[in-house]
């Protein structure tokens, strides 16, 4: 795929940087994902070769960890906390509101690629539950109105051309 060949310089830089790092696979995957938004399948043989691992081992690690993606992310990722503290402050009702507002399930992505939903289990904001993380920024003491506004902000934004 053409967009994946564009990632090669990033990939080579990352692999070179971690040439002497012991146990380098997670730092490498994080760095690739930070650079290109996901871990393209075309990167797997290169990583495997650099670390002297089998491709199956690399794929096994990518699939084991919830954080690693093999496909490009939506423009925004909203992670609503579903763990106990947030549940005790109404997280399930907020999750239902999200499903209804977006017509998506808990792991869904909107058809226009604007927003992906993902559950998360604790953001360390439990003293101010309920909480969510939107594109790396935590929002706590969430209310239904605030959640609706955050989602609308993601959907209404004009695509950069």
């Amino acid at each position: 795929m053409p967009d994946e060949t564009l990632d090669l310089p990033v990939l080579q830089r990352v692999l070179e940087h971690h040439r002497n790092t012991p146990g380098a696979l997670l730092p490498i995957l994080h760095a690739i994902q930070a650079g290109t938004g996901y871990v393209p399948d075309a990167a797997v043989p290169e990583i495997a070769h650099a670390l002297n691992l089998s491709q199956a081992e690399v794929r096994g690690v990518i699939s084991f960890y919830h954080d690693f993606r093999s496909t490009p992310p939506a423009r925004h990722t909203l992670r609503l906390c579903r763990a106990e503290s947030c549940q005790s402050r109404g997280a399930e009702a907020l999750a239902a509101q999200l499903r209804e507002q977006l017509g998506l399930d808990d792991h869904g992505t909107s058809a226009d690629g604007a927003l992906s939903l993902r559950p998360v289990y604790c953001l360390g904001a439990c003293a101010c539950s309920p909480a969510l993380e939107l594109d790396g920024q935590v929002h706590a003491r969430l209310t239904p109105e605030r959640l609706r506004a955050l989602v609308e902000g993601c959907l209404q934004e004009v695509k950069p051309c």
Partner: protein
Amino acid sequence: MLTLSIPCDSVARAVGADQLAQALTDEAARRQLPVQVQRTSSRGLYWLEPLLELDTAEGRLGFGPASAEDVPSLLDALAADPSQHPLALGPVEQIPYLKTQQRLLFARAGITRPLSLDDYRTHGGFEGLAKAALMDGADVVAAVLESGLRGRGGAAFPAGIKWRTVRDAPAAQKYVVCNADEGDSGTFADRMLMEGDPFLLIEGMIIAGLAVGASKGYIYVRSEYPDAVRALNEAVLLAREAGYLDVTGSGVAFDLEVRVGAGAYICGEETALLESLEGKRGIVRAKPPLPALQGLFGQPTLVHNVLTLASVPIILAKGAAFYRDFGMGRSLGTLPFQLAGNIRYGGLVERGFGLTLRELVEDYGGGTASGRPLKAAQIGGPLGAWVPPSQFDTPLDYEAFAALGAMIGHGGVVVADDTLDMAGMARFAMQFCAEESCGKCTPCRIGSTRGVEVIERLIASTDPAYREDQANLLRDLCDTLQYGSLCAMGGMTAYPVASALKHFPADFGLASPEAAR
């Protein structure tokens, strides 16, 4: 010149601290007021965040929770009579919630700027390291043993014994690994400490390295904590530049590296964490061998929670006897409890062990945030038991909680009011286990999925006899999980489930034991 402090803690920011700081700077500039806004750590009094503090000759005055909209009136009041502002809290250190705490680990919380080495040193930083550098490693280990410090990550194993094992293990390369995966819901003390006082953790790890003979340390931080990762990375750089990682006088070099997890709860389990650090899937290892003997890359490794390692500098600086003066029985020192969930005054309460759960939830926490009756509190994260209010007079002590079939774990307390459905929470616990299981053993991998199904059948049924059957099946399943799992992921998933079933049978549609009698 007015000096104002606002936390840069990620949760203070999640409720508007950045906007407050920006609005203050802008409005002060507009008014041509000489104001300096500094970003400190958080006091952990989260219900007051964003908490603004004003330096005065009598100490810091607090205002909170303050938002950007309050800025004009705040600046008016600061110029005239600060105590007249509706958000005025008086001297922060006199707030009873804080004043009655015994803050050892969090002594600097809310006071210092997290990445200022000067602030850290001015407030007692590196005193423990200075002492340790002049001591024989064996004496440092003896001090940790003597202090009574136990692991704060969950299992509460005596730290000193682990240190001695690693120290006595002959190897050219040893490691110190900090478990900063803090996956437990309802806990945030590790996060606060890493974001707010990263040099304390670094100091603890350097001392540990010196004592056990390790030259390399890793801090494994969960990816959900990007602010902690940033703070630690910068703090490691600053500490290295200032020469702290090349321990002055000792000739021992110690290097530190921050590693980021990737969203797997099981990587908080120490052997899965080591696998992850080695670049593998986070699959739990069978013990023995103990990580203390064959840990990271097969070498002797000291694995500790953030709070365990961060307790060490105080023990060295003030002495083991000072530390063990706090607490009760075999639970010595202080624990930063974390009040979360449906609680009016959520936040961090560092106290010696021995206060009761009721004091914590009612006196500090002020009861439920909703104002509705308290139903239960889950102590110690997602693998902890739900404790009903009838047991709230139990002292917070490892052994007393173990006797209840509960655990203190990492000190998280999630409070629930009477609207929380305990059958739903039991189902959630099984579901969470099914999702996060590493898959190595059958009770955990398969049993948790069966558990979800049994609970669903139980709740859906209207036939009392069938319900009783399913409840018995669920109890059996809990036993199988508890006694047949390789690690506490499967083993302790039984706790929240069995405790919910025992104390709240009505939520499962079962007759309560009293009604049956």
